[in-house]
């Protein structure tokens, strides 16, 4: 078993252990740290699967931003340990047999894998990857140009495109999963989802601000939320939040 496969198994097992910790540990802070381990292990697994950009994003976004945000909220709320059992006894009584039955049903599909060349390590032909991700771009003079992740390769067969037919494109690992290759796909055929994602992020920003901002008293009354106390002081003036007065 080659080192990459070994590392992949180890990282996946580490991710599972972290996931088990999330649902088993009583203290929410410990659960968050366990989640952090799971996210880091998954980032390593992505790197073993040649998804280099996603490995970096996994660590930056999940481990660096999302888990830290969760830890901040845990610290902010400071609700202490859960009273009594942290889990539903009825859920265990129903869920564990159900999970066992589902596992018995699903296991043959997963365990029927025959030994042979390792598809996840050898992967798809990298030159095929170069070709499949090439995007035709119209230049100002009307001619078309194929943009792929292999611009730094040499157009050995002289057809105007650096693509899979070029003998120079053999070092495919440079192409697959790199920032350039994924970026060409993201800003080529998937530019519309890319733009729509920015609208979603804007909605997320606006929503989280509106949900957590302390409201002036006349809004607090309408919410029938007795625990929401408007902070005293001259900073809160009725109708002061522009636009919705």
């Amino acid at each position, binding site marked *: 078993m080659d080192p990459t496969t070994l590392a*992949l*198994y180890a990282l*996946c097992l580490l*991710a*599972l252990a972290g*996931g088990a910790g*999330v*649902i088993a540990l009583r203290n*929410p802070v410990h*659960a*968050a740290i366990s*989640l952090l381990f799971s*996210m880091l292990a*998954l980032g390593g*697994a992505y790197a073993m*699967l040649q*998804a280099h950009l*996603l490995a970096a*994003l996994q660590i930056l*976004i*999940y481990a660096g*931003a*999302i888990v830290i*945000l*969760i830890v901040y*909220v*845990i610290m*902010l*709320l400071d609700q202490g340990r*859960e009273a009594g059992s*942290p*889990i539903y006894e009825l859920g265990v009584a129903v*869920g564990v047999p159900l*999970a066992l039955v589902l596992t018995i049903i*699903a296991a043959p*599909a*997963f*365990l029927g894998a*025959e*030994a042979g060349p390792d*598809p*996840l*390590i050898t*992967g*798809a032909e990298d030159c095929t*990857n170069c070709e499949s991700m090439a995007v035709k771009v119209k230049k100002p003079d009307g001619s078309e140009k194929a943009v792929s992740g292999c611009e730094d390769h040499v157009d050995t067969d002289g057809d105007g495109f650096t693509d899979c037919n070029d003998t120079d494109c053999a070092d495919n690992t440079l192409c*697959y*999963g790199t920032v350039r290759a994924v970026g060409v*796909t*993201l800003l080529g055929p*998937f530019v519309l989802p890319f733009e729509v994602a920015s609208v979603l*992020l804007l*909605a*997320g920003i606006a*929503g*989280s601000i509106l949900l*957590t901002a302390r409201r002036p008293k006349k809004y607090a009354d309408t919410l029938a*939320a007795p*625990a*929401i106390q408007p902070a005293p002081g001259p900073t809160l003036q009725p109708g002061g939040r522009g636009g919705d007065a």
Partner: protein
Amino acid sequence: MPLEHLLLFSFVLFSLGCAGVVLRKNLLVMLMSVELMLNAVNLAFVGVARMIGGHDAHIMVMMIYVVAAVEVAIGMAIVVNMFRQKDTIDVNSFDAMRG
């Protein structure tokens, strides 16, 4: 590693997240379990993309990152609001809509 084994890992990780949402009473831990489920799907996406080639699945994973980030931001805001109302985030305390 055969693809089936990677999908098995993904399946088990998703099941762990699912169990966390169903079993735990702490709202924050439930949200963390949702993150686990999203990551299980990401792992399956990356593995299949590695086998068949192409980067479409990588784009899908990045979209899931965006959704997960927004979901955590909104979810945490809701959790903070719920804590302000009842001084706890035990889901058993929130039964106002019980019929």
